[in-house]
């Protein structure tokens, strides 16, 4: 494969934002224009007046993640163009190579997430246990995480259940722009962690980014059940149905305990 789709695929794989415009009517149905977030482009629509309008429109849509059809007036005629923005792939960073993490990696992969598992304990973070993780990193999470790209497309899930690993890692998470932060633990464990973070100078607003106890209230007990409740909560949060919102019909895990 060569040409515009090849370049789109390369952009997606290199986590570069991209917008693909396809002309659906007018002079050249099927013509394509690819805009990349580094300012480069490939292909063109016809006529040039249409190409110019779509370029201007496309720039503003580049990082929207949206797909839509729009009509443009060109030389007195209407031309339909389909525009789709491709965001960098979703990423999940899991702190703690525990049993639940194995299942969470499996679910996250079904959603097309790039998965990274971090743990300082070599005994847990093995390829035998995590054959499908895209990255398996051994070391202290708070030392490793600043090197990861923790942007709005990233979900961070803390499963280590040990303040020694998790508190420093949580500080990195709260300073990042990650789109979702969840942490395993009972209500008491979560409240105790929040207090420690407050003592370290984090505000209530910052701490409120943490979903803990993590997951939706499915009543699950086994590692795969817990993993799917975490994945379900991430879907809900990403789709604007945060289970903690009073208007949400969903409930956070352990909310009835």
């Amino acid at each position, binding site marked *: 494969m060569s040409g515009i789709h090849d370049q789109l695929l390369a952009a997606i794989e290199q986590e570069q934002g991209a917008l693909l415009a396809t002309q659906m009517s007018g002079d050249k*149905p099927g013509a394509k224009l690819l805009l990349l977030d580094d300012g480069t482009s490939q292909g063109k629509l016809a006529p040039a007046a249409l190409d110019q309008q779509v370029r201007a429109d496309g720039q503003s849509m580049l990082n929207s993640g949206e797909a839509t059809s729009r009509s443009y007036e060109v030389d007195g005629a209407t031309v339909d163009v389909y525009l789709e923005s491709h965001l960098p792939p979703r990423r999940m960073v899991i702190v703690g190579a525990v049993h639940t993490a194995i299942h969470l990696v499996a679910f996250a992969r079904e959603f097309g997430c790039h998965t990274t598992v971090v743990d300082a304990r070599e005994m847990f973070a093995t390829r035998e246990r995590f054959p499908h993780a895209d990255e398996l990193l051994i070391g202290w999470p708070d030392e490793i995480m600043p090197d990861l790209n923790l942007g709005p497309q990233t979900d961070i899930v803390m499963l280590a259940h040990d303040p020694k690993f998790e508190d420093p890692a949580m500080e990195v998470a709260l300073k990042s722009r990650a789109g979702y932060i969840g942490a395993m633990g009972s209500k008491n464990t979560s409240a105790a962690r929040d207090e420690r973070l407050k003592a370290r100078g984090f505000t209530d607003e910052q701490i409120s980014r943490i979903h803990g106890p993590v997951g939706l209230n499915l009543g699950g007990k086994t590692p795969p059940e817990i993993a799917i409740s975490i994945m379900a909560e991430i879907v809900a949060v990403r789709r604007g149905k945060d289970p903690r919102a009073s208007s949400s019909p969903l409930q956070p895990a352990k909310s009835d305990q």
Partner: protein
Amino acid sequence: MRDILQDIREWQSAGEEIALATVVKASGSAPRQAGAKLAVTRSGKMVGSVSGGCVEGAVFEKAMSVLDSGSPEVVHYGISDELAWDVGLSCGGQIDVFVEPFEDR
């Protein structure tokens, strides 16, 4: 898009003729939103979806005619469509699907 392009890449290296269908507009309770894609080969391979399964067969037929003609087309599917009995969306939504021969321009 990434998964589909990866499959398409494999099909291309195997010399397949490929058409791509994309939901470019969706309204009502359409099962898949704008951006949903289905790629098919003349030999009958498929990846992705444009609905919950109700119009895929009709889209496949359209894809074959688009491969024959070489010209992309926009096709509308919906419960109000006169073809509703054949290829209507049972859920009541409406979708516009852009069907094109897959080629690199």
